[in-house]
């Protein structure tokens, strides 16, 4: 039996050991981190799937844990991503300024994750939330930009403060901090306010519109091995809070009877759709591969919100499956980009090209990941999007339907751009000497490739577990056989699709073998416009790839950034006003204020 409490304590202890080991030797400390994460992941997967974790608390005072299918599903996905990423540490941590604290904070934040999903109490949930925020906040400035940490922290804290306010509103109405009781006991207008507050927290953590601007800043500038954690794991905290609110709170708003959805949930669905659309449009514009993936995370966060706002078990199944599929896919994609960045020192697409010749496995990892993100069989993203589409169509939600399909088509446009320019584009002379990732980094890369394919071909085992969660949430479960998933208006057999797909690939391969071999020429052995091409960069076609499309919305794309800049400026203005009014050099001002207060009160008495 693995006890949740001991696992958390183990991680806390391991984080300090990791600190000292990293201080002695970066590689030793990083390898220790791998094993510590592996131990936690192994213990969780050994006992957790059957709900056999020990929840009793012996040492930590005041804490209490419970295991739910919902919490475990998140924990196991996040622990998996942490484990995969930890394999990258030996090659990256040594280059950071405060490397000894890197492994420590990494493990400490995983301890926070375990606590956050296993706790049964709101205050502890908040405790672990804040713990995760401040431990991860110190990891981000070790990357490219120091300011990225501030915007990450600002939005995260705004989210957790909204969460805490909601918690206290629940407490003042129901008198309890127990999550299950508190959510059930809500009624009246408080339920609407709490619903809204929890969703603010969810949107802030998930990076959904309109609280998304930290996402590209943090993902794009975070240390390379930390971006996959942010995108694959940490934003899922927002999804968790979103599920608590969307599924467990029934805000006493009215119903849209035609679509059988409460207004609150419908609004969230619309906002989720906006996240999908804006995320897609912004990703199309982006030149930095990591920022592009960050916007794609925003758009996928939108899918998750849409899925859980539908209040329908097929939609829920799609949402849960999407959480897994996106975690695996975005981790694979970010890690592929991280590996490229390690070899070349840049993530800007216009500076990269032809990496496939040197890093073929990294290329395959990225390829598989983007196929999954775009929702194309035979990868996991297809299954989840199929389920979500089923549910959206069945409910007859036209606007949301347009958005989810737009997001799917749009993701073709942007995910293939890094593929085409960064991996397939022209090979530059400066990258002639780079090598494929070292063997330890290839381990998680290969595992993630296999996971992406597995989730796309054999979803039954995972969906059966998801069925447990859906039953736990009080909804009817899906009909699943070994090979088939039954939706609202059709049956999906992913194995057959994959088989057809595989046959297609084999046929294509045979044709490729049989046809006449093309002559291999040097890259520069060409001419254009009657001129000899003297520099391979001129053959690069990634800059302004979608310029005509981008021109449609280039003026609008800064609106939200401007809004938050203005908000920051307003707070500063209030501060300046406060200094002017109360902190004047002239001491008479303070005396005037004293007199004003006294007079004000005396008038109050007389009246």
């Amino acid at each position, binding site marked *: 039996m693995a006890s949740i409490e001991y696992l958390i304590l183990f991680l806390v202890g391991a984080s300090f050991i990791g600190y000292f080991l990293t201080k002695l030797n970066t590689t030793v400390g990083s390898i220790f981190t791998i094993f510590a994460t592996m131990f936690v992941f192994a213990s969780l997967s050994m006992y957790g799937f059957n709900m056999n974790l020990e929840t009793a608390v012996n040492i930590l*005072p*005041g804490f209490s844990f419970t295991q739910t299918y919902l919490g475990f599903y998140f924990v196991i996905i996040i622990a998996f991503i942490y484990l995969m990423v930890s394999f990258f540490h030996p090659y990256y941590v040594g280059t950071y*300024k*405060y490397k000894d604290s890197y492994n420590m904070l990494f493990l400490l934040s995983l301890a926070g994750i375990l606590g956050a999903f296993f706790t049964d109490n709101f*205050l502890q949930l*908040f*405790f*672990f939330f*804040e*713990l995760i*925020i*401040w431990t991860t*906040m110190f990891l981000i*400035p070790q990357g490219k930009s*120091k*300011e990225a*940490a*501030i915007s990450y*922290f*600002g939005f995260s*804290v*705004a989210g957790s*403060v909204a969460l*805490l*306010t909601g918690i*206290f*509103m629940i*407490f*003042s109405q129901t008198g309890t901090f127990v999550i299950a009781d508190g959510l059930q006991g809500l009624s009246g207008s408080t339920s609407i306010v709490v619903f809204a507050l929890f969703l603010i927290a969810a949107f802030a953590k998930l990076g959904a519109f309109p609280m998304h601007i930290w996402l590209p800043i943090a993902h794009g500038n975070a240390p390379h091995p930390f971006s996959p954690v942010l995108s694959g794991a940490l934003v899922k905290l927002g999804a968790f809070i979103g599920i608590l609110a969307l599924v467990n709170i029934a805000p006493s708003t009215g119903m849209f009877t035609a679509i059988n959805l409460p207004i609150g949930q419908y609004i969230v669905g619309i906002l989720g759709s906006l996240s999908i659309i804006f995320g897609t449009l912004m990703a199309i514009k982006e030149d930095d591969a990591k920022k592009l993936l960050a916007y794609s995370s925003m758009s996928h966060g939108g899918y998750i919100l849409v899925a859980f706002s539908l209040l329908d078990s097929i939609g829920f199944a799609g949402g849960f499956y999407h959480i897994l599929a996106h975690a695996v896919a975005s981790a694979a994609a970010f890690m592929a980009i991280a590996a490229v960045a390690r070899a070349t020192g840049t993530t800007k697409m216009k500076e990269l090209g032809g990496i496939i010749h040197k890093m073929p496995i990294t290329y395959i990892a990225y390829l598989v990941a983007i196929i999954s993100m775009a929702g194309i069989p035979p990868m996991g993203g297809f299954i989840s999007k199929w389920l979500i589409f089923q549910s959206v169509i069945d409910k007859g939600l036209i606007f949301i339907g347009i958005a989810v399909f737009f997001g799917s088509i749009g993701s073709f446009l942007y995910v293939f751009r890094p593929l085409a320019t960064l991996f397939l584009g022209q090979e530059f002379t400066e990258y002639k000497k780079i090598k494929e990732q070292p063997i330890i980094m290839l381990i998680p890369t290969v595992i993630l490739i296999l996971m992406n394919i597995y989730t796309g071909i054999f979803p039954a085992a995972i969906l059966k577990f998801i069925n447990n969660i859906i039953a736990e949430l009080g909804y009817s479960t899906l009909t699943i056989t070994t090979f088939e998933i039954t939706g609202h208006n059709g049956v999906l057999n992913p194995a057959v699709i994959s088989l057809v797909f595989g046959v297609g690939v084999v046929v294509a391969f045979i044709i490729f073998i049989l046809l006449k071999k093309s002559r291999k020429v040097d890259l520069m052995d060409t001419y254009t416009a009657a001129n000899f091409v003297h520099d391979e960069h001129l053959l690069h076609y990634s800059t302004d790839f979608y310029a005509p499309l981008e021109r449609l919305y280039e003026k609008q794309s800064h609106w939200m950034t401007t809004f938050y800049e203005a908000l920051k400026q307003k*707070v*500063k*203005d*209030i*501060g*300046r*006003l*406060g*200094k002017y*009014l*109360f*902190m*004047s*050099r002239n*001491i008479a*001002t*303070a*005396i005037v*204020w*004293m007199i004003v*207060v*006294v007079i*004000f*009160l*005396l008038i*109050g*008495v007389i009246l």
Partner: protein
Amino acid sequence: MSIILLIAVPLLAAFISIIFKKIATYLLVAVGIFNLVVLFIAPMGVITIGGFTPPIGISLLFDTYSQFSLVLINALIIIIALLNCKSFNKYSGILLLAMASLNGLLLTNDLFNLFVFLEIAGIAAYLITTSNKKPLKTFHYLILGAVGSSLFLFGVVILYSMFGTLNMVDMIIKINNTNNYDQLILPFTLMFIGLGVEAKLLPFNSWVKGVLGKSNTLSGPMIASVYAAAMSFVLGRYITNLFMFEGNLLLVVTVLLSLGILIGEAMAFQSTKARKILLFSSVAQASIIALLFVNGVVIWAVYYIIAAALSKLVLFLVINKATKEVGNDNLDNLQGLFSNNILVGLTFTLATLSVMGMPLLVGFVIKLNFLTQLAAASQIWLVVIILVASVVEGIYFVRMLVKLWYKGKEQINVKYHISFKIVFVLVAAVLLVLGTYKAPLDNYDSTIDTVSQEVINNG
């Protein structure tokens, strides 16, 4: 051992130190330690002086509330004196005076006596701030302090003319019998403003900017940590027991304090100088503390004062020492302060996280508990105000931390003496231990303040 020694001995020592200047620092430390010993062996309760039974004569009230505050203040004064024994060796006599007056403030049960100690404490504070070498700012502080204590005295005079007593317990009994709160609004407002000037409450605190914004390793921690804590304790005792705000007065006070929290954080957010950020953040903290007392959350307010005093001690010491060596306190000029001072950086970070109320540190435990009590009292708007302010606070503190940890254009080099480091580590350890093991905090509740008990006994 009577608790009166806590006032008498430092006062005597202050006079002796004028004659024997060389031993002044040793005298200060010895007196401080003596005070700490007395604090643990002196009997609790009402102590009469000169054989006059209350309400006649002056009496002192020594309970757990004053014990907490006195231990904190005497210990902090010793620490600050020891850290500054080289750079500010002439100030020992003044620190002894400050010690005597602050002890008196926290012990006295007599309103006029309180005014006397307020004035003495003020004089000591003005003298301490002369070490900033900014005479005009000190003069502003002096003027405002004098106005504040006169208003306090004015309030006391009105109360005396109404009830004919100066003894606090006796006064409360008499007030309870009158049931006419309207007549009390004027004296209470005047007294609140008087104490509010010293406790840094907005809008009576314009002296803070000049004094703390130019502070050094002596005046910074003395004013921001020791004086702030002492004044908050005094204000807390009077808000809880004597003022008991209601009606219009409650409304005005709540609005003022809420504005103090929000505007204080906004002013800190707008500042780019390290000391300004810290001082405006303590303005907001002072308002939060007063707000907690107004809402009867006594015990967590007490812990909050203690945690704030300890963290602010570290923050001001680190920043003021760095400012002295670098020449100014622009955050941009202090970039990379911690790259060569990992230990100092670590303790500074922990202290900051505690102020921000981040988990694993005691600030989180305190914040969560007082917010819970406010929510239980259905004061959800106050919860919202404090939380919104804490977002702003978090952002500027993180901005500051990131700047201090990562170096800018040039590397700055600041050396911290080992004695500073010991203090930093001790404070950080306390914040961390109590943040993870909160059982000791649960040993006490709001009954540590025994004034209401005394009122019942005598009334």
